[in-house]
């Protein structure tokens, strides 16, 4: 029996802790570090960056991280798997190569996985039979086609494993599934095939548990008061074995905790039907997952069953869908909530008088009801409340005008109003999503490994 491999995830989303991946590499044993930078909205932002400059369109934070950690990666022989490539894995690799040259490093092999980005290929794919009907509503795609900003396929984990088998130290991908980043090294190390359904299912569950970083180690945990040392919280590590079982843990001296309860909470995060979790490589029955305590901060995950997956990949396309803005005012003193409601009335009335109606508008009272609506009774007296006003419309000009109507309340409305230091809220573009399916046979992924 070969010894377990240690896979840690140091980045749950673009914007997650800068230090977490460095600590995973430095503060204890680790074989693989995975990094997830991509959300749906990120893809459209990156695509627009690439449209302006063909050398952009990837997660620039990753390049800085490589600058800080390449020496330790080569020294300790750690493999890094990151979806930092966004819509331009080539340019991302070039940037990391340049960093390696600056540092005087040689022998670094970087692999890229491509084929997920189908934006330029849409016309050909439609001619060969892909209809890209909306996955939830069944709407026809044709009328949306001109508006599409980005189009990416959630591809399999096997191409990443292929890059590892070609000797890559660092692998940069575009859009794949988040759990695939963790599944791939298990496929490579243990020689799993597409028919090893239970093992692929186990690796997918490992990826699901790790994909949101510290949400497996005490982050977001209901009984937060039990979690030691949040400030130095450790990011999760899977000790994976060839039989598909794995132990979730963290570096010994890191903060946070790993218990059956922190793991079970993360297993149900973003869960649909637990009996049928679809991924590109396998469908997983989450009702077969067994958790066993095997020591302090060590939970064994086992018993997982997989089923054959579908004939399709999921496609995520983004398109521009109007504008929105939000602004806040802080209202304090006697009858703070009453005054805040009055402020809201005044602002919407002024906008109406000026001839501005919106497709959607909203007033929320932070401190009273913005998260839980009417579930709790609204307090009669509250020391201070934040009024959050928002509007959405297809017309950018209207949203811009809305943003100018908030600050005047500080001097021409009720007393005790403050907190408008941030300036007028600017219209933000709304990026909406068009989920669809594509026949797997129509998608070609490819792997390329180069050495600096």
């Amino acid at each position, binding site marked *: 029996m070969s010894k377990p491999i240690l896979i840690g995830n140091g980045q749950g989303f673009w914007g997650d802790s800068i230090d977490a991946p460095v600590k995973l590499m430095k503060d204890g044993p680790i074989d693989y570090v995975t990094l997830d930078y991509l959300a749906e909205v990120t893809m459209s932002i990156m695509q627009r960056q690439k449209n302006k400059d063909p050398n952009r369109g990837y997660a620039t934070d990753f390049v800085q991280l490589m600058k800080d950690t390449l020496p330790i990666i080569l020294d300790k022989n750690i493999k890094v798997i990151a979806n930092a490539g966004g819509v331009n894995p080539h340019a991302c690799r070039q940037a990391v190569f340049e960093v390696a040259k600056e540092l005087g490093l040689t022998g670094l092999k970087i692999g890229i996985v491509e084929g997920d980005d189908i934006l330029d290929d849409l016309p050909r794919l439609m001619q060969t039979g892909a209809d890209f009907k909306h996955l939830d509503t069944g709407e026809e795609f044709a009328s949306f086609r001109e508006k599409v900003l980005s189009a990416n396929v959630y591809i399999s984990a096997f191409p990443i494993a292929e890059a590892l088998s070609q000797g890559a130290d660092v692998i940069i991908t575009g859009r794949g599934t988040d759990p695939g980043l963790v599944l791939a090294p298990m496929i490579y190390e243990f020689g799993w095939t597409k028919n090893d359904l239970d093992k692929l299912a186990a690796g997918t569950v490992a990826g699901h548990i790790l994909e949101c970083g510290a949400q497996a180690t005490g982050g977001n945990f209901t009984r937060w008061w039990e979690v030691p040392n949040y400030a130095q919280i450790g990011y999760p590590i899977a000790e994976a074995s060839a039989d598909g079982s794995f132990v979730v843990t963290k570096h010994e001296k890191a903060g946070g905790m790993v218990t059956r309860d922190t793991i079970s909470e993360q297993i149900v995060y973003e*869960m649909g*039907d637990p009996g049928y979790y679809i991924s590109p490589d396998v469908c997983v029955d989450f009702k077969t*997952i067994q958790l066993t305590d095997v020591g302090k901060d060590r939970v064994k995950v086992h018993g997982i069953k997989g089923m054959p997956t579908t004939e399709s990949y999921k496609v995520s396309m983004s398109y521009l869908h109007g504008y929105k803005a939000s602004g806040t005012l802080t209202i304090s003193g006697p009858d703070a909530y009453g005054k805040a409601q009055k402020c809201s009335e005044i602002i919407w009335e002024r906008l109406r008088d000026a001839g501005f109606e919106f497709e*959607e508008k909203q007033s929320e009272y932070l401190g009273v009801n913005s*998260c839980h609506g009417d*579930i709790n009774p609204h307090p009669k007296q509250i020391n201070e409340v934040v009024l959050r006003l928002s509007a959405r419309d297809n017309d950018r000009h209207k949203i811009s005008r809305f943003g100018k109507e908030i600050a005047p309340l500080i001097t021409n409305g009720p007393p005790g109003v403050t907190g408008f230091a941030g300036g007028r809220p600017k219209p933000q573009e709304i*990026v909406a999503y068009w989920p669809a399916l594509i026949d797997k046979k129509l998608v070609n992924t490819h792997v390329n490994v180069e050495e600096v």
Partner: protein
Amino acid sequence: MKRVRLRDIAHARSGDKGDSTNVGLLANNEIAYEVIKREITAERVKAHFGNIVRGEVDRFEMPNLMCLNFILNDSLGGGGSETLRNDAQGKTHGQAILLMHVDVPDDYEL
């Protein structure tokens, strides 16, 4: 029987799925799981969330984790980047379900 909040016998986490959220409600022990399985119906969850949830609520049982998984359909005011809500992704719905009341046996140790 005595009346307690769900937070006394269970823990929870929520996340977004398009314009819907899921809330995983995990019982602290077998007795608590029997209680939530019996008491916390999809209808009760929908009523509890009031005007936050515009669609139906689906319920799935996961006995292996002593968990009920609820899908709160149409609960994010458009979802994704379209929603105007402060809690755009339903991150707080897990905390909200723990405010529900439930009856447990008198000898249930809190």
